[in-house]
């Protein structure tokens, strides 16, 4: 019984510490400000990575960057005040889907980053990236994809 009290006290103590950490602040949720910064994160994590084709969520919480000269796609999501990156090969994902509102939902077989929702709010752009992520041919019944940065749209990483 004594051990149970110790564990409960420990739980209270660590919750208090995390609460103190939150109350004191001193950290900021990070964001991805540009494709360059997303690629820099990928290059740092993967040792070598370059890209000149990608998309950054307008709220700066996720980015996708196609590997130059390859079929793989780099994914960067924010995690608190840090970033998490993945290099996704075609066919590696469980699925990549587009919601009616134009969000791109990535479902991985990786339990440490199982699901990422990128709220592009643009079904055409989202479908194009979904196709690339799963290694399928790009959609053919659409007009060319815009190459300007997306607007005021959001992305969310769920872990």
């Amino acid at each position, binding site marked *: 019984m004594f051990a149970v009290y110790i564990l409960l006290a420990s739980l209270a*103590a660590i919750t208090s510490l995390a609460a103190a950490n939150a109350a004191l602040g001193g950290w900021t949720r990070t964001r991805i400000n540009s494709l360059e910064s997303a690629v820099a994160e990928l290059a740092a994590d993967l040792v*070598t990575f370059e890209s000149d084709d990608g998309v950054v969520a307008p709220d700066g919480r996720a980015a996708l960057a196609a590997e130059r000269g390859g079929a793989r796609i780099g994914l960067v999501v924010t995690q608190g005040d*840090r970033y998490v990156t993945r290099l996704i090969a075609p066919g590696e994902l469980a699925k990549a889907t587009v919601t009616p509102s134009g969000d791109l939902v990535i479902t991985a077989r990786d339990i440490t980053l199982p699901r990422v929702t990128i709220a592009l709010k643009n079904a055409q752009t989202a479908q194009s990236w979904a196709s690339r992520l799963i290694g399928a041919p790009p959609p053919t019944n659409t007009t060319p994809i815009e190459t300007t940065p997306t607007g005021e749209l959001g992305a969310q990483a769920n872990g």
Partner: protein
Amino acid sequence: MAETTTEGPVENAAIAAPDLPDILMWAIPGFIILVLAEIIYGRVTGKTSYEPRDTFTSLFMGTGSNAAGILLGGIAFLYLSWLSQFALFDIGWAWWAWPAAFVLDDFAYYWAHRGGHRIRWWWAAHVIHHSSQHYNLSTALRQTWTGVFTLQFIAISSWLVLMGFPLGMIAFVKAMNLIYQFWFHTEAIRRFPPWIEAVMNTPSHHRVHHSTNPEYLDANYAGVFIVWDRMFGTFVPERDDEPCRYGIVKNLGTFNPVTVAFHEWFGMVRDVLSARSIGDAVRFVLAPPGWTPDGSRETTAMIKAKHRAAQAAITAHEAADPSAGTPANTSASAASPAE
């Protein structure tokens, strides 16, 4: 256990076992106070970094590790008690046995820790300690829940038991070792005088150990004395021009403690079940983390080789054209705007 006599060197064995305090339990309030102090210090100076969810996960993992130790530690104790009957000597509680046990335990810790990074079975438990992208005192407490299960603790302790050190002494020096390892998980201290850095494990040396920079991978496994790394070729000094990036080569996208605790076990089981031969299944368990039959994932050795190749390409490029910058194929670049 070897027979105890009252003559000669083994006279020390007759010294009664002291009533040793549980110093790890006594240290816990100190750990909590120091974590709080470092949070405040970081807030005031900006020299250390904490994120609340990361902090909670680290501390929760520490609490869970303690609980697992209470539940499973008894099994390890029973085994080591049984093993002690085969001890070569009966060293007993002589004064000199204490520093000897401390140093030898640290030597054993070095090898077990090195194995913890090179053998996936042990890494599956140890990865938890490295899974934070922060390096602060709460990271020190981010500990495994499955350490006893991997038999790593038994592997460290068995040979000291077989030499004849008392179990209570081994447990005590092991606790001292763990307490020593708490304080150097910090960015608040840059470096100590060279003579300290030469002998002792310090914040600077251990920052390297927690880093994923290719230059820093698989280095500085020491617990207390950094001399083991210097002796066995795994020492890498921290460089001011190469800031540490903390975490693991594939960082976790979650703060969920259960996922943190078991993700590598889950991956290992999935790999074993998908193996095409018994040999591959065994290698999925015992080979270095990242090993796959087709090389589709990367071990740390592969990452370091890739980095060396990239560095060599830069050097060759600069030698060929000193006025040129970094070659395009080794740099991060992003030329076009986002779609």
